[in-house]
């Protein structure tokens, strides 16, 4: 089926219907991203097309959510200054400030 015959793309929202109770924004590395009450931080980032929010310790490779259920720890992120939070589990809250986590997340401690 070609793009043209398919018409407008469906979205997950179309599939389940309804409207979000509340839309607000979350700060990610200085950007304002739209967020909805009930989304995990990883879901907010994915909705904005952001797939990576951490770099690895050894090779500084970009990583984001992988397992989606809290078992891989690849989605670690710094939330309101607190490093190593699993973005796929932590619910986004109004006023949150999320920052890319580099290495262990404790680089500022020079350990």
């Amino acid at each position: 089926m070609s793009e043209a015959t398919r018409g407008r793309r469906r979205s997950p929202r179309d599939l389940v219907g309804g409207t979000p109770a509340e839309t607000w924004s979350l700060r990610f590395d200085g950007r304002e991203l739209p967020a909805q009450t009930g989304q995990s931080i990883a879901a907010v980032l994915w909705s904005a097309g952001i797939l990576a929010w951490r770099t690895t310790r050894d090779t500084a490779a970009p990583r984001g959510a992988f397992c989606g259920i809290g078992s891989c720890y690849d989605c670690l992120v710094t939330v309101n200054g607190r490093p190593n939070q699993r973005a796929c589990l932590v619910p986004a809250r109004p006023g949150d400030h999320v920052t890319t986590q580099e290495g262990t997340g404790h680089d500022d401690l020079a350990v």
Partner: protein
Amino acid sequence: MTTSPSDSPSAAADLAVVGAGPAGLAAAVTAAGLGLRVILLDAGERPGGQYYRHPAPGLGAARPEALHHGWSAFASREAALRAHASAGRITYLPYHHVWTVIPDPDGAAWTLHAVAGADEAPATVRARAVLLATGAYERQLPFPGWTLPGVVGAGGAQAMLKGGLVLPGSRVVVAGSGPLLLAVAGSLASAGARVPVVVEAAAYSGYAHHVPALLRNPGKLAEGATYGGALLRHGVRLLTRHAVTEAHGTDRVEAVTVARLDRDWRPVPGTARRIPCDAVAVGHGLVPQLELATGLGCATRPSPDATVALELDAEQRTSVPGVWSAGETGGIGGAQLALAEGEIAAHSVAGRPVPARLVRTRTRLRAFAAAMAGAHRPGSGWTGWLREDTDVCRCEEVPAGRIREAVEDLGARDARTVKLLTRAGMGWCQGRMCGPAVAALAGTDPAPDRRPLSCPVPLRHLAELPAELP
């Protein structure tokens, strides 16, 4: 529905259930219905586990059931959970990750320690019996490029879609092995992603040897046909005996190489072709999550899919008296089986006879699960698609070459020694992602989950444990 333990922590409930997936939820409401006082703990924010994962109420989904089969089975039990919770028969503790279970010296009760909520507060509950319904996580077999952003777990993509109504990309290749791939492809396509192809490493002809088990499971066939229908409608192709052997891209995935596999899952030279995509959802079946059970000394057994499951009797008892288990921990078998096993366990804990209907359901679905598990068991040749520099352990960034060196030059004979020599499996995920791959490279069968703590625990919680505990 959040409730806190109203009784003093030392008053033991009749039953503590760990996990509010299909198995644990069914067990908790059945046990409460049989008169037991139950505490139900789950690491997640809402009941439902992996299968009935659904958006938070705030997301205002009018039809969460659009992403599920058998939603009514969940809705009725969730309603029962609410009723039992408000009547004080069930204490439901969401967002509580249990990290250890400790028996009283006299064996009459158990203490469960959990990390609760975003601020990781310590929580303790006590019960006279324990039911472990901790489910499973995905099995991943690494390939070059699998750490690129945009390569995500197949079940993970499904979980993020069900829970957050989000997609990892707009053109998603679904790959790996197992029936979950069809469900994932169907959901992604229904939610608006283009899924050019489902790449399945096994040959579905593997099912042909198990026609009787299939025929006794018409419901499962119908479910397969539903997925098949959705895939056809969305123009998704199914390629069996093929694998994604490489993901390409710099900052994120841009394409994959797909190759034909021989019987042993070795890529056939000259069959590779490139398929453009902006995401890959990959998984090779599920692995029972056993660390709490093995920590208690529960006996395990090998499953036909080359994973390790708990050894359980007909009433879902583990080998440790006072500890029951149900659902994926006893071998991967799907949500319907998990519901039945949860109810069987509840009857057993309550000392009631198990209804024959439940026993028949369990027997039938376990036979089906065994047939499927065998059909999707990874062939040994998959390691042929690893390059020396392919990271196998994502956390510690240990490449295949270093693991092979540990095995071939340094004489490591098992995954444990490989781990000590290379740090593979020593990182954050404690080998959940690389365990099966490391075992394959070491030439051994996967060992049962053994992790001292089932999640990271703030040191202050350990410091606060009573000194006499082990």
